[in-house]
């Protein structure tokens, strides 16, 4: 593990690289040469630019300023990236960030192998070997989302190693992973390096002790490199014994001021009162047991630590203790009272700090503190004094009026603590308060905790995954997979196992538990660490790898298959894809109808003669258009009934109507129509006029009529819809509407989702081309669109009795092109939206208006004017609507449908082009 001679060319050389996110500078003019063939660690707390640096090296992020040579070429150059990208493997930060949680372990690794173009036979052998080597083989069919953190990281590693890289980049691979898995992970890496000696490994970590054994270290802080060299060199330079102290020694002077070795005064001896008492706490989610019979007794004034990895049940236990989650079994009491929801007295004495930053980022520091004082009903005078005291003690003075979200991590944690202790609670429950905080800030945070415990007698219950923090607690519980493995003072635990460090002791307990578990299940063979040579390729690559078009097609299909499996395993998207359109078809088909029937009318007959009754009778007789209600007895009543929407029209017959009619005086009849809803009012008025006209023409009803002379007759031909019912016009239009709305949204979400969740990185760092990616993603949605089309056509026929009169085959072809177009629209939208929520709303807003207003659904395109007409003429729905309505109601001739089909076909390449131009192959 000696540093190789400097004669070898560095694997990475960096000159003056600066990277900014908006105003924030992540990397500040870094220059660095990283030697080849070594295990290189980048150390430093969160937010110092480690991840940015690694993403830039991997070519996943776009270089902003400076120069970077990776594997003997300029990484900013596309051609070089294309050449070296199969030689680089990159595993981003976050547990399984580039995994597809719905897919199984095998499918995840297999997917990466497909993207790197391994042949099917090669693939299956390679994937199995890797899973065997990492001990994942027994879980090959389990969805990645249901794995523990350590296992997710192993899956990620398999995915990274599937194509034999020369440069392996691992960004914080062990953060949040339990100590045993961590140790196994490093053994695995060592084995792989042993079998591929030329490989360079670049790893970042926040656990400085891990880096102690590595070949070469880059210490970073605030976007700059503090120092480089072997761990021994660095420790010698600072005169320290471990890397964490060494790192603090390397920090600039102003950051170190005020930092001193933490000293913990011993707790006064003697038994104190038990304040937190948990007995057999158990919590199950479905058939998964998150917390398994945990029992605790914590004494007043004690600092009690909970040590364990992510997902081992620490947070769930805390939620049960605070009353946020009801336990499935067991009891928890604070001060002897049950914490089940509702006990206000207990909550008044409880301070809680959640794992995430649980303050209002959009409020200032002062507002956050004041809000809590108000909610705890602390009297104004006292609250003011208390806030002043805390601000001073926690060093928040200079930041009082800055927004909480603008504070650096260390300060945020202190603010969170200040908020949690504002009301002077007797118990403080802190859920991983120090993760992501640099060592100096961590120590100053602990100083506050120690003061609270020792001077004010506050009982502190804290979870952490830092072993050195565990050492500072009075007592700790080691937790793994929902179970407490051991519980005692940290020194005693180490002694009991005869270990040298707490980590070794923890691992010892975990191995015991694992052995027990293995014995119980009759033990599958433990992951054979011997299968190391598997890192060698199964056959010589390049020779059999598919090339050119076949390779591209294979990657396209890999993405299509991947997407299909994801949709099938996501119930919400699945329901939205199929039930959504069926539901909306029913709503539109039955609910959106402009047929005006059953108009409620009342007569206000001031004459009461046979003639007036005969006149009114005509309206009653014209069912289903008019529906008679009890007559009105006064003008006041008729107005009131019109106002209350009880009737839509009142027919008022004047006194002496009958006499005037007989004399030929031409009496007036007044029809008062409710025109509040304009369209309906207009239609009702026309119906009234229509009934009146019919009456005059019909000699049978006793009204004297002059012979009609100077008039023409009208014959109305309602073409395409002879019965003039909404359903025939509406039902054929609905698929045009739904196939754009639902498909565009789903398509946009599917791409933006990858950006938001991080799996987009697989596209950035694999040789996948833009068109392969886009078409692969689009294919499943085109299929969904076609299935939807058949569902809607079946509903039109069987539910609404609207059959297709024209050519169904041609309509199917038009639909195929239309759904390709509408998913294309979603694709284009996905290129400029960054969150799923934005994708949904932007797509909805951009597609709904042109589809409903300008494509002929409500108003024929021929009657549109100005810009509305322009939009209508280029919006694809217009053409599909024409074909669909035509095929259903008009029996449209094929030649006319072909014009629409030609237009839709022309849209597709245009949309692909826009999507390709908008899709970046690197992160900004």
């Amino acid at each position: 593990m000696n540093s190789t001679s400097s004669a070898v060319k560095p694997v990475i050389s960096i000159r003056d690289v600066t990277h900014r996110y908006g105003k924030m500078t992540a990397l500040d003019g870094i220059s660095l040469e990283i030697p080849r063939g070594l295990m290189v660690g980048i150390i430093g707390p969160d937010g110092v630019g480690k991840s940015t640096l690694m993403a830039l090296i991997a070519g996943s992020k776009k270089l902003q300023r400076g120069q970077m040579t990776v594997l003997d070429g300029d990484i900013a150059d596309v051609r070089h990236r294309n050449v070296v990208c199969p030689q680089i493997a990159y595993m981003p930060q976050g547990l399984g960030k580039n995994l597809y949680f719905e897919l199984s372990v095998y499918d995840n690794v297999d997917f990466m192998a497909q993207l790197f173009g391994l042949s099917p036979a090669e693939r299956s052998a390679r994937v199995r070997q890797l899973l065997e080597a990492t001990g994942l083989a027994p879980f090959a069919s389990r969805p990645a989302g249901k794995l523990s953190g350590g296992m997710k990281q192993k899956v990620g590693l398999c995915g990274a190693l599937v194509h034999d890289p020369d440069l392996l980049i691992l960004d914080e691979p062990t953060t949040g992973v339990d100590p045993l898995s961590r140790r196994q992970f490093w053994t695995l890496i060592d084995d792989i390096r042993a079998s591929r000696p030329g490989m360079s490994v670049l790893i970042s970590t926040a656990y400085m002790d891990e880096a102690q054994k590595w070949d070469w270290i880059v210490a970073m802080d605030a976007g700059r490199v503090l120092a480089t060299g072997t761990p021994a060199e660095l420790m010698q330079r600072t005169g320290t014994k471990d890397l964490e102290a060494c790192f603090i020694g390397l920090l600039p002077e102003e950051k170190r001021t005020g930092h001193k070795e933490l000293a913990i005064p011993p707790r006064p001896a003697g038994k104190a009162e038990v304040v937190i008492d948990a007995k057999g706490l158990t919590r199950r989610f479905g058939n998964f047991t998150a917390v398994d019979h945990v029992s605790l007794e914590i004494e007043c004034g004690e600092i009690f630590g909970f040590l364990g990895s992510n997902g081992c049940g620490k947070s769930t236990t805390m939620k049960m203790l605070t009353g946020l989650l009801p336990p499935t079994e067991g009891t928890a009491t604070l001060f002897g009272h049950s914490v089940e929801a509702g006990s206000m007295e207990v909550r008044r004495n409880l301070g809680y700090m959640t794992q995430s930053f649980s303050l209002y980022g959009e409020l200032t520091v002062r507002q956050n503190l004041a809000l809590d004082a108000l909610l705890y009903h602390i009297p104004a005078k006292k609250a003011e004094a208390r806030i002043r005291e805390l601000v001073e003690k926690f060093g928040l003075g200079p930041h009082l009026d800055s927004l909480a979200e603008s504070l650096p991590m260390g300060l945020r944690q202190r603010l969170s603590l200040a908020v949690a202790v504002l009301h002077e609670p007797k118990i403080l429950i802190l859920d991983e308060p120090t993760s992501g905080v640099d060592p100096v800030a961590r120590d100053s945070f602990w100083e506050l905790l120690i003061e609270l415990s020792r001077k004010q007698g506050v009982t502190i219950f804290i979870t952490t995954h830092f072993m050195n923090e565990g050492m500072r607690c009075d007592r700790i519980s080691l937790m793994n997979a929902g179970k407490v493995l051991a519980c005692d003072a940290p020194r005693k635990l180490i002694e009991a196992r005869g270990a040298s460090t707490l980590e070794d002791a923890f691992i010892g307990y975990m191995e015991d538990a694992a052995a027990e578990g293995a014995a119980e299940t009759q033990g599958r063979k433990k992951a054979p660490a011997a299968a190391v040579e598997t890192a060698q390729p199964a056959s010589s690559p390049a020779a059999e790898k598919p090339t050119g078009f076949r390779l591209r097609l294979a990657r396209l299909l890999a993405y299509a298959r991947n997407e299909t499996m994801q949709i099938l395993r996501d119930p919400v998207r699945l329901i939205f894809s199929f039930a959504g359109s069926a539901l909306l078809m029913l709503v539109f088909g039955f609910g959106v109808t402009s047929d005006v029937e059953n108009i409620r009318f009342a007569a206000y007959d001031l004459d009461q003669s046979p003639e007036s009754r005969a006149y009114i009778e005509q309206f009653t007789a014209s069912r289903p258009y008019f529906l008679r209600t009890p007559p009105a007895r006064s003008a006041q009543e008729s107005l009131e009934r019109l106002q209350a929407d009880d009737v839509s029209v009142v027919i008022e017959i004047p006194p002496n109507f009958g006499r005037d009619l007989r004399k030929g005086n031409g009496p007036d009849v007044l029809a008062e129509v409710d025109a509040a809803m304009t369209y309906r009012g207009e239609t009702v008025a026309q119906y009234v006029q229509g009934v009146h006209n019919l009456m005059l023409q019909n000699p049978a009803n006793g009204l004297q009529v002059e012979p009609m002379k100077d008039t023409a007759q009208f014959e109305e031909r309602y073409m395409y819809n002879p019965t003039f019912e909404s359903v025939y016009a509406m039902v054929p239009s609905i698929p045009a509407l739904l196939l754009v709305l639902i498909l565009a949204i789903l398509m946009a979400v599917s791409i933006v989702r990858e950006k938001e969740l991080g799996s987009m990185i697989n596209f950035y760092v694999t040789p996948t081309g833009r068109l392969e990616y886009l078409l692969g993603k689009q294919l499943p949605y085109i299929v969904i669109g076609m299935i939807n089309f058949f569902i809607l056509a079946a509903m039109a026929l069987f539910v609404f009795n609207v059959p297709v009169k024209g050519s169904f085959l041609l309509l199917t072809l038009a639909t195929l092109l239309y759904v390709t177009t509408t998913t294309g629209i979603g694709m284009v939208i996905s290129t400029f939206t960054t969150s799923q929520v934005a994708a949904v709303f932007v797509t909805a807003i951009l597609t709904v208006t042109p589809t409903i207003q300008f494509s002929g659904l409500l108003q024929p395109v021929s009657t549109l004017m100005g810009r509305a007409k322009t939009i209508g003429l280029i919006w694809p729905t217009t053409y599909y609507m024409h074909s669909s309505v035509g095929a259903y109601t008009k029996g449209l001739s094929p030649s006319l449908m072909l014009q629409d089909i030609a237009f839709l076909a022309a849209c597709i390449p245009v949309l692909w082009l826009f999507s390709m131009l908008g899709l970046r192959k690197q992160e900004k």
Partner: protein
Amino acid sequence: MGTLTNIFWLGLKEIRSLLSDKVMLLFVIYAFTMAIYIQATGTSNDVNNASIAIVDEDNSALSKELFTVFYPPRFQAPQKIGANEIEDLMDKGLFMFVVVIPPRFEEDLRFGRNPEIQIDIDATAMQQAGIGTNYIKNILSKRISNFLKRTDQEPSAPVNLIIRKLFNPNGLSTWFLSVVAIINQVTLLTIVLTGAAVIREREHGTLEHLLVMPLTAFEIAMAKVWANGLVILTAAAIALFGVAEMALKVPFAGSHLLWFFGVILYLFFATALGIFLGTISRSMAQFALLNILVVLVLQLLSGGSTPVESQPEWLQNITFFLPSRHFVSFSQIIIYRGGGLSAVWSQFLMVSAIGLGFFMYSLALFRKSIAVTK
């Protein structure tokens, strides 16, 4: 007392958070001003700029004159086409109406033989087709009879029907559309705002923080109701006074106070629905998808787009439980028809009852939802 102050302070915090979200704020302002103006003036379900063609097989002085009777804004200038072209051109969707004047039309009229004019109507454009046909018939009849009599006098009939359109005598569709637009925006934005507030608090972990404090789920939910409700109420007031009444000159016949009281009741329902959706969705993206389905149903079946009376009987029985339907109904009664409390109390009661039901249900789910988060 403690409860009330808690609700007050929590709500104030809610409003502060909202005010700091500039994008959301701009969206709300746009939705209640520009968007309403555009919807109210841009579209029309009345006949407007309708395309029409005439087949003239008579070629008489009268038939030629009939080309001059259609003009904007209702109709485009009529095109002359041949009898054999009708079907093809209508298939292409170029004309909504084709009027066919038969041979010897004028002659037949003069001999009192009541000749027949055929009107071909593209009945797939439902809303315009019915009304447009009647316009065409009236325009043609009038001009024909005037042409023959050489006079503009109306013929006398045995009974004269006088139709008076109440509440909107000139049939201006902006009156109706502007109010429906306000109602639709109230529904959409209240749900989005409240639901997003719930999910944001849950994603940021601040909800857990609140639930550990001596606060009840009722207080937390109620704070969201009043804060988001107040924001939307203010926006709706700006839209009503500024856009509808001032810019679009929509008269308000009834009592403003009564309408705003009704809006408050509706907001109670909509915020409760927002909390409910925010509680059951596991992520913002799920919420967005759910939201689209729910809002579309609430808006389309409310009677704001097409009359409730036109829905089939069984559907009307279901939509009776949609508060948006009652909102549209009482808004029409108060704003156009000038109805008082006696005319709208049943709608108010229905909206409150459903709102209360939803609120209670979401409240029950609220605490449980913590179990759903990680």
